[in-house]
């Protein structure tokens, strides 16, 4: 959050659509190599926020800075520095996959053998070689999604903006997508990811921001919510005994026999059980803790439902 030169910075961004404020006074930062999950109930303003991040829409107030440059002043920066996959991957149905990727590259001013090589590598990576000569109009939703993703990745942008990228993907493809996102982040690319699937967020994101009625209601790192387990013992022991176990990074007693545990980066649940048994503790069970993310999201969603209900009653 305190990165002196963030890759992407939203400064008090507001946007009205159809007479309604969809995004209000939004401040967000994204560092290089960071994966930000953007969550919110339907209509929270996620897609509009992503479109502004991608340079496809301009804010009414505030500014979106990419590497310190205001996108409204230099919209051409979006050409090379942003890869955007909008919701439902809109594509030109009259073109085949290769034509589509080539057109996308030319629109960004890219030509030549290097681009063709990169295109072919992406087709292979996203398992689209067999569809390469097929018209986009006849592709399945998952295939279209992968073509959209290939377009977003083709020019190797430092910022990736992905709106529901897992739509239509099977579990294997979804896992490959997560791997791809982590790879890009490891290469220094910043990624903003919007999804309704909380497990996808916890699996791939470093930070989570939750929007509600266009305003930012939650913005926190995800480490605290990852790898937390609830260890249940047959007897009550001092929390310090559990903290001394090698796989444990942090422990918090929930009650006499239950402990919320944050594991070290290299540890997993079996390692925790093994260490506890080796230390003479009677393990009754281990299960994932309902994460802070889920709790935060549910709290905000419940507030939303309650306020909507109150408004309806008042009306």
């Amino acid at each position, binding site marked *: 959050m305190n990165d002196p030169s963030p890759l992407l910075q939203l400064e008090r961004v507001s946007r009205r659509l159809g007479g309604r404020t969809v995004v209000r006074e939004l401040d967000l930062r994204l560092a290089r190599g960071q994966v930000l999950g953007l969550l919110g109930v339907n209509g929270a303003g996620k897609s509009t926020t992503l479109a502004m991040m991608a340079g496809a829409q301009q804010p009414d107030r505030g500014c979106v800075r990419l590497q310190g440059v205001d996108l409204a002043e230099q919209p051409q920066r979006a*050409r090379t520095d942003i890869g955007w996959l909008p919701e439902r991957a*809109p594509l030109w*149905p009259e073109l085949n996959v290769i034509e589509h990727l080539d*057109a996308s590259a030319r*629109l960004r001013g890219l030509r030549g053998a290097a681009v063709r090589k990169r295109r072919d590598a992406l087709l292979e990576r996203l398992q689209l070689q067999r569809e390469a000569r097929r018209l986009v109009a006849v592709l399945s939703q998952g295939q279209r999604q992968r073509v959209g993703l290939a377009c977003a990745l083709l020019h190797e942008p430092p910022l990736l903006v992905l709106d529901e990228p897992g739509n239509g993907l099977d579990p294997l493809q979804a896992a490959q997508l997560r791997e791809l996102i982590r790879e890009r982040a490891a290469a220094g690319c910043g990624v903003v990811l919007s999804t309704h699937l909380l497990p996808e967020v916890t699996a791939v994101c470093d930070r989570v921001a939750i929007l509600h009625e266009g305003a930012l209601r939650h913005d926190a790192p995800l480490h605290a919510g990852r790898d937390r387990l609830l260890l249940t013992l047959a007897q009550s022991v001092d929390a310090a005994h559990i903290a001394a176990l090698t796989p444990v990074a942090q422990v918090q007693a929930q009650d006499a026999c239950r402990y919320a545990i944050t594991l070290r980066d290299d540890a997993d649940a079996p390692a925790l059980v093994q260490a506890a048994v080796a230390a003479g503790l009677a393990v009754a069970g281990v299960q994932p803790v309902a994460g802070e993310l889920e709790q935060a999201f549910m709290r905000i969603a419940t507030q939303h439902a309650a306020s909507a209900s109150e408004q309806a009653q008042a009306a």
Partner: protein
Amino acid sequence: MSVRAVMGYEWCRLWTRPLGWVLAALTMAGMGWEFLLMLNQYLALQVRLAAAGNTSGFTDLVTLPWLALFVIAAFVLAPLLTMGALAGERRGGTLPLLFSAGVSPTAVVLGKYFAALLWQLLILLLLLAMPVVLAVVTHPDWGKLAAAALGLTLALAALNAVGVACSAFAGHPALAAAGAFVVTALLVGVNKLALADGAIGGIANWLALSTHLQPMGRGLVSTDDLVWFALLIGTALLLAIRRVGDERTRGG
């Protein structure tokens, strides 16, 4: 650069869509048939016309009236080939993709305009080949032919600009085509009432397409006519650019 890139992919879309080919084939077939009919009539009347002292030749009696028919084809071609240019992108949700690629509204509009215009200019070029190949056996009036070709080119440019502008404002390609038909009909018919009253000059006549196209069909090119076409094309394209720019700023 962006104009060329947009033009390139729009051309690719025109190339792969059957609509462009069907319209081109129908136009070529219809115009080819009319050309043969008019040529046959000319050959049948040629001797009698010469005997009557009529100095009009092949260009006046066949080529120019035949090219005038192409204007009618252009009234249909331009709206149908431009209707999806921006309304189709908007409907398919692909317009923001262009914005996110850093393509300016000007490049979007001009790229699409030039792609559709180029398609129709190729049709015109193929049609012009018919009278031109007859230069082997006759003596066309090249000056009149060039003026008529210029007039048709300008008419196509104007009708396409109107079509792109209608596409920029419409939410659906069919609405864009309907809008372009209406505007074209107004441009054609704006002076009909005035002409019926016997008024030759006046604003209504100046606004009409025929006032500026017919002289070129007779081999006369005037600055006034060129300015009229430039104004119409410029205004239509500026409106389209403004609308697309607004869409980017305000989100449609």
